[in-house]
């Protein structure tokens, strides 16, 4: 398991996970972290279209089952573009001493009963409503979130589709890894 900073001299805020030597999942070698994997795949029309069509997406099991493939693919590509444009903008602002503060506040607990879990699973939507894409991560104490991946949510419960179940497993794996390594916060730099 490797954790990356999002910029030099960082001591809190958003960190990025790379799953290396993990039993459940490996970040593909072509990518530095999970974030640039998401960035590449979710802006790739061929990948997005094939993913939606695959049983792993849960497209035909959820509320979007009657939506045309092309409509969903277009929306996802647009949302991914908006997300990374926003991350780039926030990242530029963070160089002025405001490290991802806006982004940090946008991460919410995965379910209401997980609000006080530490480390705890978190999610972030791109838009205020009708987001298909979620960023997932693990919040540690009150000062950092480690992004573990992203998902396209077409089903009601994450357990209802294989791709989102993997995102749950990745978050759970990181939580156990943090506990095993007795990493509790990032405040005492």
């Amino acid at each position, binding site marked *: 398991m490797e954790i990356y900073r999002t910029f030099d001299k960082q001591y809190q805020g958003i960190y990025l996970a790379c799953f290396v030597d993990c039993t459940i999942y490996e970040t593909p070698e072509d990518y530095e972290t999970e974030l640039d994997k998401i960035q590449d795949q979710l*802006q790739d029309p061929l990948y997005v279209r094939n993913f939606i069509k695959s049983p792993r997406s849960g497209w035909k099991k959820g509320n979007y089952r009657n939506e045309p493939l092309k409509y969903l693919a277009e929306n996802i590509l647009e949302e991914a573009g908006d997300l990374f444009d926003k991350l780039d903008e926030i990242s530029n602002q963070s160089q002025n001493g405001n490290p991802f503060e806006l982004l940090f506040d946008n991460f919410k607990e995965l379910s209401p009963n997980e609000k006080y879990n530490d480390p705890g699973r978190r999610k972030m939507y791109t838009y205020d409503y009708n987001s298909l894409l979620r960023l997932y991560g693990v919040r540690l104490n009150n000062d950092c979130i480690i992004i573990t991946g992203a998902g396209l949510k077409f089903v009601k419960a994450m357990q209802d589709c294989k791709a989102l179940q993997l995102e749950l497993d990745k978050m759970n794996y990181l939580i156990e890894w943090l506990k095993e390594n007795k*990493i*509790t916060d990032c405040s005492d*730099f």
Partner: protein
Amino acid sequence: MTKKTKNLNQIVTKTATQWKIRATKDRSNRREISRAQQFALDLLDYMELHKIKQIDLADKMGVSPQQVNKILRAKANLTFETLDKIADSLGATITSPRIKTNNSNYTQTVGSTMQVVHRRQPKIIQENSKISSRTKKNPILETSFENMNPYGYTAKQI
């Protein structure tokens, strides 16, 4: 016995750079990327509808399968020459980009900004007109009364 804990910064040694490099580049090219993605989705729909494989399209275009893959992943810089090759290979027409003024004082429309690909045969036009009627954006592979105009531009006239 006290439990010795660590903070995250003690074990983090690297800074991620790749996502940021790409995000900055993509943000400055967002319009081009969106167009390429839109074209790729339309082409994928067309290929699926007519059961055309990537390798067959590459063969007909006289390019490598990797080049076709790049187009379908919105990573190729599409030129008029490439668009003509695609149109000829599919037996379809890709109309040229047209200019439409944004100034409301000018009511005369010079052309439309829409890119349209369609089969020449009326039978296929009927099939195409049924697909994805709910799409929000310019459909390349759909047909309308407008692009059924026999005097419309073809790929060779771009």
